[in-house]
């Protein structure tokens, strides 16, 4: 009986040893997940990231005699009259632009009638326009004669330099004209749908688009 008891005790002891070893082994395996080695590196200088700016400003010419810009009203325009206004566009931002457009909005037949309404033509001069309106540098037509009505969908301006680079300035002559018309006025009564005697206010919007994004290695 004691022999049997001793054998039983020996068997239990073996089971305990195996179980203990299994648990210990499992614990040893688990400990390798929760205690992995790590390493990090942080820059100690620099690291500054700055986004560029795209800006566009406009101003009337400062040359005496042609300072009307888009601020001074135009009155009494007769068919085939043209009024030239002079505007300076600048890009004071840090990004170059890739394209420029011109839009116009307003109400009334002068603005909305693509045939009888106002026409606009835009020229660019490489130097500031003098009061005579004659460009002393290189002059380029960057928007051919088109109706103001069509500028409801902004038209592209092909700038002389191709774009308005950061810090650059360009000089524009905006020729605003009323085209010839075939109206007949009898006894002082203007015809129905006349283009005469109208007043419209026009808002001009220049829009430039940033240059294409670049990928660089540095």
């Amino acid at each position, binding site marked *: 009986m004691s022999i049997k008891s001793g054998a039983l005790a020996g068997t239990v002891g073996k089971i305990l040893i195996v179980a203990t070893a299994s648990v210990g082994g499992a614990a040893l395996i688990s400990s390798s997940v929760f205690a992995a080695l790590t*390493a990090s*590196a*942080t*820059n100690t*200088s*620099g*690291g500054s990231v700055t*986004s*560029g*700016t*795209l*800006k*566009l400003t406009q101003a009337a010419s400062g040359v005496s*005699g042609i300072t009307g*810009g*888009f601020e001074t*009203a*135009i*009155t*009494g*325009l*007769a*068919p*085939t*009259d043209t*009024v*030239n206004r*002079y505007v300076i*566009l600048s*890009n004071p931002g840090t*990004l170059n632009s890739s394209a420029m457009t011109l839009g116009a909005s*307003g109400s009334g037949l002068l603005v909305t009638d693509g045939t009888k309404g106002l026409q606009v033509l835009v020229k660019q001069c490489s130097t500031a326009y003098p*009061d*005579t309106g004659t460009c002393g540098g290189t002059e380029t037509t960057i928007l051919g004669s088109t109706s103001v009505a069509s500028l409801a969908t902004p038209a592209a301006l092909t700038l002389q330099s191709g774009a308005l680079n950061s810090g650059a300035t360009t000089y524009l002559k905006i020729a605003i*004209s009323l085209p*010839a*018309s*075939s*109206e*007949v*006025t009898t*006894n*002082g*009564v*203007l015809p129905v749908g006349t*283009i*005469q*005697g109208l*007043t419209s*206010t*026009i*808002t*001009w*919007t220049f*829009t430039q*688009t*940033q240059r294409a*994004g*670049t990928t*660089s290695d540095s």
Partner: protein
Amino acid sequence: MRSIVVFSIAGAIIIAPASLVSAHAAAKARSVSSALSVNSGTARVIVGTSSVSVGTLAHAINATTSSCSFSSTLTAKGKIGDTVLSLTTSTGLLVGMSAVATGIPSGAFITVISGLDVTLSQALTAEIAKTGPSISFLGCHQQYFYANNIGTITVSNFALQQTVSGNVPGGFQIQKCSGTWTESTGACSGTITNILSTSSGTSSIIDAGLGLTYQNGGLSDSVKLRAVTTKAGQSTSITSVVKNVSHLRAGITSNS
């Protein structure tokens, strides 16, 4: 290997470009002007009784504030093509009176009186003998009126049209004077020119050959005209017409 990755990231941060742009959402910059006011002018001419008349209707003329007719024979034979006739007397004659005789074209009228000599607006088409027949000078049934620029654009010309009531022998003539009219005598210090001559119905639209300036901020230009006929009691209605195509001043290009 792990160290290379770590230092690459750190380097990229330290040596970053000064500015970045997005490749997928291109930035735009706008510059919007203040509202520019643009006003178109008007080209309007009316006819009326005075130089300050305004309105929107044709001008009705019930002509003929006086009646003066005269007749005379010649002191010398009038030949075909002559426009100047030497009369035995010119008393009572007025510039603008119609001259009526065989050999004088219908509608001819006196344009100049110089002593006993009168100049007609049209040349003789047949001889008129010294001894007669007499030449009748009719008319000075007249009324003056004005064409006024009431618009805001100078016109280099305008047109007139008239509708004559009934039948007017010799025609209802609308005349201009290159000088100054003297209403009491019907004389013109310059030259009288017929703009229209209509015997009945509605005339064509005829250019007056006169410009009317627009005076900014003041009374605009006007011109005195005369309606004259050879018979009392006639009436006409005068319409003014301005055509943008042909009557406006030339376009102006300005820098401002």
